C-alpha cells in the first residue's frame, strides 16, 4: 500500500506559514524550521500514520503562486504537475488569509483534491481577526481544519480530516473565481484541449502565455498543438485589445478580489486590526538611529556568549578529551626504544586529529543555539533588512548575513554550516557569491594558528593584530564578492529583493535546543568522516617512504651508544640489576613519559597526590624511578641517569621523525613548491603544514608541531620551539604573510564538499579552492616582498595592507552608481 513511489500527500503553502512545523509533527522527523521565508528549498519526504496506513508525506518549499519564475515555484509546480499527489494539504496563514488564498485558489483550479489547514490561528485570534473555519469551508468547498502548528494543536482533527477526504474522494470546488469577460475564452479553449489536460488552471496559464506549458503541449499533441496555440494567442490578444488589460493582470486581480470577498465573509470582526505587536517592536528596533546600536549589541552578545564563554567551557572539556587520549596511549602497544608500533602512532594521530575538532563542540552548541533564537524570533530577517544596503553594494544580499555569522565574522565559526545556510538566499547570483566568500571568514580552526603566530611574533600587539585579522577577512570577502559578481558571476540570474517581514515569535526552548544539537551533530559528523579520512591520507603521505637502511643503521648506532653510556654510568648503582632487563628499562622510560603527560593536566596538589597514589599502587617496582625527586641517593642517581638516557632517546627519535618527513611524499611536494612560495617567505615546512591543513585547518598547527619537533611528553611549548627555529631577521614578516595567506586560504575539504553540494557543480567547487589559493599566494607574496624590500616591520606592513583594503572598500562602497531610472517618469494619469 505504501510503496515508495505511490502518490504522496503533499504539504503546500506560502513561505513561512508553518508547513515544516506541521510536517515535523505529522512525521516525527526534524525538517529545518525558521522564522523567515524560504527556509525549505527542496522537497522532503517523510511517513505519516493515518489509521492503519503508512503514507508518504512531502514537505514542499513555500511558494506564493504557481508561475515558473522562481526556483521554489518551479519545484512545487513540477511536483504538482508530474506526480499529482493523491491529496494536497494547503497550509494557510490565518493571519494573512487573503494572500494565502491566492495559492489555494490556484490549486483548486488545478482540480487537485485538497484539504485546507488554517495554521497560525493563535496569531489571528490574538489580533482579534479570528477566521470562521466553517464559513471558509463552505465558500471553498473543501474541508478546513484549524491548527496551531507550534503547539501541535488540531493535529488529530487534521489527520481525521485527511483520512476522511482520502476515502471520500474529492468534490469539485463550488466557488471558484469568476473571470468575467475572460470566461468565454476559457470555455472555448477548455473544449479544444484533450480532457486530461483541460484543467481551468492550465487554460488560464496558457492564456497568460506560459512557456513551459506551451512546450509541453507541443510535445504531447505534436502537430495538433500549433493551431491550438494560435487560437489561444488570438483569444488573449483579443481580450487585451477589448479590455485594455493584459490577461495575466486581469486574472490576478479577479483572483484577489475573490480572495478578498472570502476573507470579508470569514472574518467577523468589525474592528479594524490594531497595530500589531511586531510593528510596535519594530518602531523601536528598526528606528534609524537605534537599529545599528541594537544590531551591534546583538552581534557582540553572540560573540561574547559563544566565543568568549565557549572558550571558558573548553577549559573543562579539554582535560576530558586529553584524558581519553592518555588513556588510549596507555592501552595501546607500548612505545619501543626507537620505533613505535604502527598501531600506536597511527591511532594516536587519529585521536589527536579528532580531538582538536571536538574541542570546539561547546562553542558550537552555544553559537548555534543563539543563532536559532535569532532565526526563530524573527530578528534575523531584520538583520537582513538593516544590512542589505551594504551587502547589496558588494553583490551580496541581506540574507547573506546569517551565512557570514555562522562562518565566523568575529573569529569563530565554521564554514560548513555557513555554506549550508546560503540556501535561504533567494537570489542565485548573490547566493553563489556568498557561498564563495563565506570560507574567508575566520572559522574556529583558523584561530589556533593565528594565536600561535601572534603569541610568538606579535606579543606586544596581540589585540591590534586580532582586530586586524578579524576585520580584514570581512573586508576581503566583500571585495572578492564584488569582484566575482562583476566578472564571472555576472551572467547569473538575479531576483528582486522583496521579502516578507515575519512577525516576532517567542522561540521555543525545544526548538532551539534541537536545532543547536542538529547543527553541532552535523559538524561532528564531518569530523567523523571527512577529517578522519584525510587524516589517514596525510599520515600515509607523511610517513612514506620512510627511512632508508643506512639512515636506520645510523640511528640505531646512536641509540646503542646512548644505552652503553647509561649502563656504564649505573654500573655500581645497587638498583642496576633490574635495569639490565631491556623490557624493564623501556617500561620505566615509557611510564615516566606517561606520568609527565598526566601530570601536565593537573593543577592542584590533591589531584597530583591522587595521581602519585595511583601510579604507586599500580607500578610499585617502577614508581620510585619515574616520579622526579624523593628516594635515597642511589635512587636519585638512577633518576638522573634515566633522564639523560631519555633525553638522548628523544633527540634521536626527533631527528628520525624529521628525516622521515623530509623524505616523505608530502615533504617532497612541500620542497618542490618552495620556489613558488619563496616569494611569500614560506619554506617547505610551512608548505607541508598548509598542505595538510586542507584536510582540516586545525591540522596546520598539529603538523607544524611535528615539523618543529614535538616530543612525546615534552614540556617546551610549540611557541618556544617555533620561535627558536624561526629566528632569522624577517621571521615576523613570514609570520604575517602566513597569517594573511591563511586568512585567504581555500576552504577546507569538508567545506569544499559542502560547496559542491550547495552549488551542485564540481566546477564551482574546484574554483572555490583554486581562486583563494592564487589570491592568497599573491597577496602574501606582495606583503612579504614589499616588507623585505622597504625594510618595514610586520606591524607596519599589516597596518599598510589594512588601510589599503579599507580604502578600496570605501571607494567601491561609496562610489555613486547611477541607479537605473524607472522606466516611466511620474505622470498625470486618469
Amino acid at each position: 500500500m505504501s510503496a515508495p513511489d505511490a502518490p504522496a500527500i503533499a504539504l503546500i503553502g506560502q513561505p513561512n506559514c508553518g508547513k515544516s512545523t506541521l510536517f515535523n509533527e505529522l512525521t516525527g522527523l526534524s525538517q529545518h524550521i525558521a522564522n523567515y521565508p524560504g527556509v525549505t528549498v527542496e522537497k522532503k519526504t517523510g511517513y505519516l500514520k493515518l489509521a492503519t496506513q503508512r503514507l508518504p508525506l512531502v514537505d514542499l518549499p513555500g511558494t506564493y503562486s504557481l508561475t515558473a519564475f522562481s526556483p521554489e515555484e518551479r519545484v512545487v509546480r513540477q511536483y504538482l504537475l508530474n506526480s499529482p499527489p493523491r491529496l494536497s494539504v494547503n497550509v494557510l496563514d490565518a493571519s494573512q488569509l487573503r494572500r494565502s488564498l491566492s495559492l489555494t485558489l490556484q490549486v483548486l483550479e488545478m482540480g487537485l483534491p485538497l484539504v485546507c489547514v488554517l495554521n497560525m490561528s493563535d496569531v489571528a485570534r490574538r489580533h482579534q481577526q479570528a477566521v470562521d473555519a466553517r464559513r471558509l469551508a463552505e465558500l471553498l468547498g473543501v474541508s478546513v481544519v484549524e491548527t496551531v502548528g507550534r503547539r501541535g494543536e488540531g493535529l488529530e482533527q487534521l489527520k481525521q480530516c485527511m483520512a476522511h477526504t482520502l476515502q471520500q474522494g474529492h468534490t469539485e470546488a463550488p466557488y471558484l473565481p469568476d473571470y468575467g469577460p475572460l470566461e468565454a475564452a476559457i470555455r472555448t479553449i477548455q473544449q479544444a484541449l484533450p480532457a486530461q489536460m483541460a484543467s481551468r488552471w492550465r487554460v488560464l496559464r496558457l492564456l497568460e502565455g506560459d512557456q513551459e506549458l506551451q512546450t509541453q503541449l507541443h510535445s504531447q499533441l505534436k502537430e495538433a498543438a500549433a493551431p491550438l496555440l494560435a487560437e489561444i494567442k488570438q483569444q488573449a490578444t483579443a481580450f487585451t485589445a477589448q479590455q485594455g488589460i493584459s490577461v495575466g493582470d486581469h486574472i490576478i486581480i479577479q483572483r484577489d478580489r475573490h480572495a478578498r470577498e472570502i476573507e470579508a465573509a470569514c472574518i467577523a470582526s468589525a474592528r479594524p486590526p490594531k497595530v500589531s505587536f511586531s510593528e510596535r517592536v519594530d518602531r523601536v528596533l528598526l528606528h534609524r538611529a537605534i537599529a545599528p546600536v541594537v544590531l551591534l549589541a546583538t552581534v557582540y552578545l553572540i560573540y561574547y556568549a559563544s566565543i568568549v564563554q565557549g572558550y571558558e567551557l573548553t577549559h573543562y572539556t579539554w582535560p576530558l578529551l586529553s584524558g581519553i587520549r592518555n588513556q588510549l596511549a596507555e592501552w595501546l602497544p607500548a612505545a619501543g626504544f626507537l620505533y613505535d608500533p604502527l598501531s600506536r602512532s597511527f591511532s594516536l594521530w587519529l585521536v589527536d586529529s579528532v580531538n582538536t575538532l571536538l574541542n570546539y563542540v561547546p562553542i558550537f552548541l552555544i553559537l548555534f543555539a543563539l543563532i536559532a533564537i535569532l532565526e526563530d524570533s524573527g530578528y534575523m530577517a531584520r538583520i537582513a533588512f538593516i544590512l542589505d544596503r551594504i551587502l547589496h553594494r558588494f553583490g551580496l544580499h541581506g540574507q547573506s548575513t546569517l551565512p557570514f555569522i555562522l562562518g565566523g565574522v568575529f573569529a569563530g565559526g565554521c564554514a560548513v554550516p555557513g555554506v549550508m545556510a546560503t540556501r535561504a538566499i533567494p537570489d542565485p547570483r548573490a547566493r553563489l557569491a556568498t557561498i564563495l566568500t563565506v570560507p574567508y571568514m575566520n572559522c574556529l580552526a583558523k584561530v589556533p594558528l593565528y594565536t600561535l603566530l601572534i603569541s610568538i611574533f606579535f606579543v606586544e600587539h596581540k589585540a591590534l593584530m586580532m582586530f586586524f585579522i578579524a576585520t580584514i577577512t570581512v573586508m576581503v570577502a566583500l571585495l572578492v564578492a564584488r569582484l566575482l559578481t562583476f566578472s564571472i558571476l555576472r551572467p547569473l540570474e538575479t531576483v528582486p529583493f522583496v521579502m516578507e517581514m515575519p512577525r516576532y515569535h517567542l522561540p521555543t526552548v525545544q526548538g532551539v535546543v534541537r536545532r543547536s544539537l542538529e547543527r553541532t551533530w552535523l559538524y561532528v559528523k564531518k569530523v567523523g568522516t571527512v577529517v578522519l579520512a584525510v587524516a589517514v591520507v596525510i599520515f600515509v603521505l607523511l610517513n612514506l617512504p620512510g627511512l632508508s637502511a643506512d639512515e636506520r643503521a645510523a640511528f640505531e648506532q646512536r641509540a646503542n651508544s646512548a644505552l652503553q653510556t647509561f649502563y656504564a654510568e649505573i654500573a655500581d648503582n645497587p638498583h642496576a640489576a633490574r635495569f639490565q632487563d631491556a623490557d624493564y628499562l623501556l617500561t620505566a622510560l615509557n611510564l615516566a613519559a606517561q606520568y609527565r603527560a598526566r601530570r601536565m593536566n593537573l593543577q592542584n596538589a590533591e589531584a597530583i597526590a591522587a595521581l602519585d597514589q595511583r601510579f604507586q599502587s599500580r607500578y610499585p617496582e617502577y614508581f620510585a624511578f619515574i616520579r622526579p625527586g624523593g628516594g635515597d641517593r642511589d635512587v636519585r642517581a638512577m633518576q638522573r641517569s634515566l633522564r639523560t638516557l631519555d633525553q638522548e632517546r628523544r633527540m634521536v627519535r626527533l631527528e628520525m621523525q624529521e628525516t622521515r618527513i623530509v623524505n616523505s611524499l608530502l615533504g617532497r611536494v612541500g620542497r618542490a613548491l618552495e620556489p613558488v612560495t619563496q616569494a611569500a617567505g614560506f619554506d617547505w615546512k610551512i608548505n607541508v603544514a598548509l598542505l595538510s591543513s586542507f584536510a582540516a585547518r586545525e591540522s596546520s598547527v598539529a603538523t607544524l608541531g611535528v615539523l618543529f619537533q614535538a616530543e612525546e611528553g615534552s614540556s617546551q611549548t610549540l611557541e618556544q620551539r617555533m620561535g627558536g627555529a624561526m629566528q632569522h631577521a624577517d621571521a615576523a614578516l613570514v609570520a604575517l604573510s602566513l597569517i594573511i595567506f591563511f586568512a585567504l586560504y581555500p576552504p577546507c575539504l569538508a567545506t569544499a564538499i559542502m560547496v559542491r553540494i550547495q552549488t551542485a557543480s564540481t566546477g564551482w567547487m574546484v574554483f572555490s579552492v583554486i581562486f583563494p589559493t592564487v589570491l592568497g599566494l599573491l597577496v602574501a607574496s606582495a606583503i612579504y616582498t614589499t616588507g623585505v624590500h622597504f625594510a618595514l616591520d610586520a606591524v607596519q606592513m599589516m597596518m599598510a595592507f589594512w588601510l589599503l583594503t579599507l580604502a578600496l572598500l570605501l571607494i567601491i562602497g561609496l562610489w555613486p552608481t547611477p541607479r537605473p531610472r524607472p522606466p516611466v517618469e511620474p505622470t498625470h494619469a486618469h
Partner: protein
Amino acid sequence: MSCAEYTLDRVPQGHPCRIVRLTAQGAVRQRLLDMGLLPSAQVEMVRMAPLGDPLELRVGERDSFIAIRRQEASYIHVCLCSEAALVTENLAMSSASP
C-alpha cells in the same frame, strides 16, 4: 478621478497610497503581485532601513509588512490617498521635472 502619480520610492514615510500600476515585467512583476502589491491595493512606506535602502511597506489594510529595495519600489506607481499630502515640496518638484 485624476490624481498625481508617483513612483513609490519617492513617496515619503507615512503616506498611505493606492497602487495605480506596475511598470516591472517578468519575474519582478510576478513577485510584486504575489506579495499583494497589485493595482488598487493600498500601500504605505512605514520606514527606511538605517542606510536609506531597503524600504519597509505595509500592504493592504491588515498587517502585512514587506521589505523591498528602492529599485523595485520604483516600478510601483501610486496615487496618494489624501491629496492634501501633496504640499510636500520635493514631491511637487519631482513630479514636475521631466
